[in-house]
């Protein structure tokens, strides 16, 4: 065991896989010499060489599009979009090819790859550096979407993602990159994709969240506890395929659901979870399921970001309303 932050843990997951599987290649903008703008791939080029870990010209579409060709020809690309807000030039490749080549070729070809990207707000950044658009990817048939909330989960989930035969969008909560440290095993281990985790057991209400907002929910839970509210917290960990079983079981137990997401609420992950609650646990519901989400607006620049970012108080507000309903 070693104390690691999320940057260290992700770095180690990639490092271990590079050591183990000679077909893995790691590339993107600034990932080689510099080791990434967040230093997530630091030292990997030094250790594994510039044939395997390298900088590309500045073009997201070509990074993803080339990765499709590599994957089809037997390599395993683990690529980086510098920020999730810069994935858009590559959306054509992701939606039209990464997500579809398996179906199009009737299973003959696949595009197993991991597309890593830091996402989310809270770092006082310029425009386009704060987006949370997991819903866009989750809405695209053919993709799997993973979002860890702790260093330990990040490592285990990334190892599974790299080993997966399916393409994985791996979204990293950049606000937590260095904010949380915990003991993480230095061995190779994996956490299955598609499994949520119950972080705390409770009886009054189920809160489902993921990524950077887990910490905010936990902060809200401290106050909820003082108010005598017992919260069951589920960390979704994988957005798609969504772990219905864990969520439904919990709702059946508590009868109440609040979903917390950072991106715009409408047509999002919260809507999906509430649909699941309605379809699978309707008769167990004692209050209308509720979304806490970003507004359906563009993330404001730093001086307005506090209006947008979900605070523990906002979560508590909805928890209280839902429990008192």
């Amino acid at each position, binding site marked *: 065991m070693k104390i690691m932050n999320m940057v260290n843990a992700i770095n180690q997951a990639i490092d271990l896989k590079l050591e183990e599987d000679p077909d893995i290649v790691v590339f993107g903008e600034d990932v080689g010499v510099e*080791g990434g*703008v967040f230093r997530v791939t630091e030292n990997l080029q030094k250790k594994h060489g510039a044939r395997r870990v390298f*900088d590309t*010209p500045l*073009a997201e579409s070509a990074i993803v599009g080339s990765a499709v060709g590599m994957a089809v020809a037997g390599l395993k690309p683990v690529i980086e979009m510098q920020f999730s807000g810069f994935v858009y030039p590559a959306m054509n490749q992701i939606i039209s090819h990464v997500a579809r080549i398996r179906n199009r070729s009737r299973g003959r070809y696949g595009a197993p790859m991991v597309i890593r990207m830091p996402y989310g707000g809270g770092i006082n950044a310029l425009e386009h550096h704060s987006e949370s658009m997991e819903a866009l990817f989750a809405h695209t048939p053919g993709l799997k979407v993973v979002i860890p909330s702790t260093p330990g989960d990040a490592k285990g989930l990334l190892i599974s993602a790299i080993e997966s035969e399916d393409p994985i969008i791996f979204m990293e909560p950049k606000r937590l990159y260095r904010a949380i440290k915990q003991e993480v095993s230095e061995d190779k281990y994996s956490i299955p994709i598609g499994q949520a985790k119950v972080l705390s057991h409770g009886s009054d209400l189920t809160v489902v969240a993921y990524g950077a907002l887990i910490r905010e929910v936990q902060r809200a839970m401290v106050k909820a506890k003082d108010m005598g509210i017992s919260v069951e917290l589920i960390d979704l960990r994988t957005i798609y395929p969504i772990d219905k079983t864990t969520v439904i079981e919990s709702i059946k137990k508590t009868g109440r659901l609040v979903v917390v997401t950072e991106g715009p609420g409408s047509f999002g992950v919260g809507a999906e979870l509430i649909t699941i609650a309605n379809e699978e646990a309707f008769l167990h519901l004692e209050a209308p399921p509720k979304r806490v989400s970003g507004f359906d*607006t563009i993330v404001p*620049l730093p001086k*307005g970001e506090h209006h947008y970012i979900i605070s523990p108080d*906002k979560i508590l507000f909805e928890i209280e309303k839902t429990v008192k309903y």
Partner: protein
Amino acid sequence: MLEEFDSFKTEMFQVMDPAGNITKPEHFPKLKDKDIVGAYKKMLFARTADLMVVSYQRQGRIYTYPPNQGQEAISGAVAQIIRKDDWLVPAFRELGAWLAKGASLKEIFMYFMGFEEGSLFKNARNMLPMNVPIASQLQHATGIGYAINYKEKDEIVYTFVGDGGTSQGDFHEALNFAAVWKVPVIFIVQNNQFAISVPFKTQTASDGIAIKALAYGMPGIQVDGNDFLAMTKTFEEASEHAGSGKGPVLIEAVTYRMGAHTTSDDPSKYRTKEEEDEWAAKDPLVRLKKYLMTQKLWTDKEEETITGQYKKEIDRIFIEAEKHTDYPLEDVFKYQYADLPDDLLLQKAEHEKFLNWKASRK
């Protein structure tokens, strides 16, 4: 001159060498002595502001900022040529060009302090906000060019991109459309040798960017971007070309980003001190100053006095910008749509309910 230095020859156009000597007097731009002094002062102002922002950032008074140091001659030359009605379609590293168009330093500070209002550029005619998604702005420039032709206006579009940006599909697509449509657009590539940590040789296998113009069917020229006189001469001719219905021009300004990529970057990770020193010797301000001093148009004394004045003025503007702290909730919603959907008003109202609840608990 555009023909003489056509991109296929890959000879870099230069009028003044790094020592400030005029090597090609036949290409001296149409500038009077006082214009050159004026231009030097503007570049000095931009440099002073730029360096001060970097130190404000270190003091935690402003967020991430992309320094311009070393690239001032390019914007300085645009400032000489761009007209009130011409369009400026920015990237994010051409401070002098923004100021020339009428963007105020206060707005620029506010933008980097985290206010959208800093993108307003109230007094700048025909200027778009800064553009962060690399190279996407070039297509807007092409479209503006189409509208100018369509409306038969006498306007030219100046647009900026970095060397890294030339790798994007958007760069290729914008230039291709522009040449097919023969639009009055001047594409300015600030080849500052790096895209964050990635050096030019990783960006393209080509010797340069200007040569790519040939394949699009437009003139291209590689210019010493640290030579203010060569840059000005280039813009004189490019604007003549674009403004007379002959279509777009691609200008590759060869320069060097002397500072960090942004205030969150550490260049020592990817480049050597020797390389930095080599380029420091080609500093565009030092070069123009040498020229002005040999012409007896400028003295160290003047420089000292005026730099002192600039520092005071910039600090005053910065403090004024800092006074702006208010960011009402309404501002998050107000500009999302021309016709704001009721649903967004409801979201705002819901949030206000929460704020009231929060206030009542204190």
